[in-house]
């Protein structure tokens, strides 16, 4: 009798526990799916709204388009220079990301691996750039670029993109390089790899995922 009671109690306990975990699973999954949905929905909304005509959009902003209507795209392609703009953005993005990636990686490697004189000063020197908005420096920047004949070229924008992208990349990549074990470079040195080869052939590939994350964030 007593034994039976404990057993039923145990079964009850297990089932309530199971129910509890199940509800927790459902609720937490639901929250995350809701969150992910809100992350993409505004973009999807703009995407399918681009197939609507003006009247259709005014009538029902949320509904799906009645049919695929490419008129808006034709208009953009024929009446604006969108293709040129996209090409410019693409070129600037690719080159700026590569520049930030390479420059921030090299400086971060030295900043995090070696204790040279002025290291902390240099780190803080790079981080200052994070505190001032680019828009607040446009006038001095423009005057300076004009005086040094750097303005009005296809590569003009790359300099501010790279320089203003560096601080965030340096903060993120520096702490990541610090977490890479030194044994990696020691092993490479034992195998006879030179310094620059270790730097670009071994440490760079290890850091790339993190560096690229830090680099492309500020560019777009």
């Amino acid at each position, binding site marked *: 009798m007593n034994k039976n009671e404990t057993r039923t109690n145990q079964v009850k306990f297990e089932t309530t526990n199971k129910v509890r975990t199940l509800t927790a699973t459902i609720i937490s999954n639901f929250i995350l799916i809701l969150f992910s949905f809100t*992350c993409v929905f505004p973009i999807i909304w703009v995407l399918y709204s681009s197939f609507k005509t003006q009247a259709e959009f005014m009538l029902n902003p949320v509904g799906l388009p009645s049919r695929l209507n490419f008129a808006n795209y034709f208009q953009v392609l024929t009446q604006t220079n969108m293709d040129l703009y996209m090409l410019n953005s693409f070129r600037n993005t690719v080159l700026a990301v590569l520049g930030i990636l390479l420059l921030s990686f090299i400086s971060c490697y030295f900043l995090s691996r070696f204790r040279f004189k002025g290291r902390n000063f240099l780190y803080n020197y790079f981080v200052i750039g994070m505190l001032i908005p680019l828009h607040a420096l446009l006038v001095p920047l423009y005057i300076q670029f004009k005086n040094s004949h750097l303005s009005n070229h296809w590569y003009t924008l790359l300099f501010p993109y790279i320089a203003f992208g560096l601080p965030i990349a340096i903060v993120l990549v520096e702490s990541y390089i610090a977490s890479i074990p030194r044994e990696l470079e020691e092993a490479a040195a034992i195998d006879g790899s030179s310094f620059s080869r270790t730097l670009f052939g071994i440490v760079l590939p290890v850091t790339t995922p993190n560096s690229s994350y830090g680099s492309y964030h500020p560019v777009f």
Partner: protein
Amino acid sequence: MGCGYRHTYTRTPFLPLKREGVKLKKSALHPKSGTILAYMLPTFLIYTFVVIVPIISAIRLSFYNWSGGKKITYIGLNNYVALLKDNVFWQSFRNNITITVLCFIGQIGLAFILASFLQTRMIKWKSFHRIVAYFPATISAVVVGFVWSFVYNYDYGLINTVLGILNLSKWAKPWLDNPDSIMYAVSIHIIWQYIGFYMVIILAAMASIEKSIYEMAEIDGASGFQKAISITLPMIKNTLAVTVMLCISGNMKIFDHIYTMTGGGPGNSSMVMALDVYKTTFIKSQYGYASAMSVGILVLSMLLIFITRIPTMSWRKESDD
């Protein structure tokens, strides 16, 4: 300078590589200072030329009265005196603080909660969530501002349409025209955009915590909430310090979101410092005064970062001991 957040870790010196029979180039591990200099120089030069020199010339310009022409007069500290009395500037500073606080709660707090969820075994499609959450951060801030101004639009915006479908039209509001709630409306889309950015950083830090610590805590009967507060939070506090710094610095110089969404309006109720400088520069053409404002932004941001750094200093001392 109050901005040197970094992970604390022990610096083990490189091994003395003097084993017999192994010939090593010493320079492979310990490059000469000339090599270090040569590698660092390009970064240093570009950065100095594009960021530091304009800051210095902005400081110089801030002592002058100049509206773009040949006439440029030295007026000493008058720009700064005017800045201290400038209501619009201080209101925009308050707005920046509001955005920073809301983003601190909304971005880092929510990102931490969501990342903790993603660490548990219950969640399905983890990589899907991770990718999708980061998606908004990859879009240009200008595009995000425009998309969200469609979302908030009174006549055909997403929010009001959905409210209409749910028969709640009485709640529909001109979201971007109400000076009282405009800062919340504006903050929401900034939070929305960068939540994934912080989530990925926090997830990476969480991934480096050893699983055995959690297992021990589970044996001792810790709940998921207790694990998050007593284990995860202290273990990733260095990363959190970095995210706090990124949050402050990013929100003190927020520009594109506000510029595309409200342009600082209605009135000046959603004005932020960077936008104020931009308008002073390009609409009012007061270059000297705008430079003084930029210096003000720099000083205020540094001050804020320094204040938030005070609690983390004690952490660093602990980990040094």
